């Protein structure tokens, strides 16, 4: 008997399901960052607003990368439902705390999917997800570094803090070498 599912796609159903859930998670991240950008923007934190607008775009890009991958492999990608996200925050610190928490849950999710790939011997998808592993290292580093700066810079130097936070990058990723 022919293996019809395999002839259609190399992606197993469990991996397809997990990647679709990841697409949704990235789109939720995108929506959350957009809300953070809006909050910063209306509270006069222009640089942080710019930082989060860019983050929001990047998360959408992460989702699209998976979306195209599924389509190219003959699997089915679903445009996800994105539920309502928080629009208001208590402070700049709570914004960055939210960002770090979101990145941690994304990292956990990526690791979980790699586990599924290994169980299913799906090395192509695992290879793709390596990019996400590296990306998550950077994103977690940046969110953590921002929280450190918020603690280190006196809270009355808001203009300086705003500028400084938006300039945080991660240049030292050991995987880049």
């Amino acid at each position, binding site marked *: *008997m*022919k*293996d*019809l*599912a*395999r*002839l*259609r*796609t190399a992606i197993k*159903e469990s991996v397809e399901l997990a990647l679709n859930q990841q697409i949704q998670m990235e789109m939720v991240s995108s929506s959350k960052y957009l809300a953070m950008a809006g909050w910063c923007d209306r509270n006069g934190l222009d640089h942080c607003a710019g930082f989060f607008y860019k983050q929001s775009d990047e998360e959408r890009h992460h989702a699209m990368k998976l979306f195209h991958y599924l389509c190219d492999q003959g699997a*089915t990608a679903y445009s996800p439902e994105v539920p309502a996200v928080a629009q208001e925050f208590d402070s700049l610190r709570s914004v960055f705390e939210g960002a770090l928490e979101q990145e941690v849950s994304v990292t956990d999710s990526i690791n979980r999917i790699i586990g599924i790939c290994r169980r299913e*011997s799906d090395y192509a998808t695992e290879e793709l997800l390596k990019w996400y592993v590296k990306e998550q290292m950077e994103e977690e580093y940046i969110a953590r570094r921002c929280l450190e700066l918020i603690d280190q810079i006196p809270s009355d130097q808001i203009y300086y803090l705003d500028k400084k936070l938006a300039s945080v990058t991660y240049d030292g990723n050991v995987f880049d070498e």
Partner: protein
Amino acid sequence: MTSNVPTTYQEVFRTDKGVVYQCDASYRLILEFWNTRTQFSARDFAHFRRMVETIDIRQMALSTAASDDVEILTLPRSERCYVLTLCEIVHLRELLNGAKLMLDLNSMLRECGCTLPQPA
């Protein structure tokens, strides 16, 4: 219904309520249930199985609203639909999940270089 089965159809899984066949010539899976035969591509079959799998049968069982007595499923790429009672959903699930198990087994055998013996 089961009487006039085309020779290209191979039985994948059977319960006393229905059968799933595979036709290697047309790359189709054929669901025979409730005196109807429906052909699916592999993709649509998986999609349809998920549709049946995700019906909230708890809600159907608990609700007294008439609209919760049946579930209407539109078949992928077709104008036809199934109107299913709770009981039929349970039977259909059993059939589709059994078929999935056999198809997965067929995949596993292919992966390790074996094939199921062709029926005579």
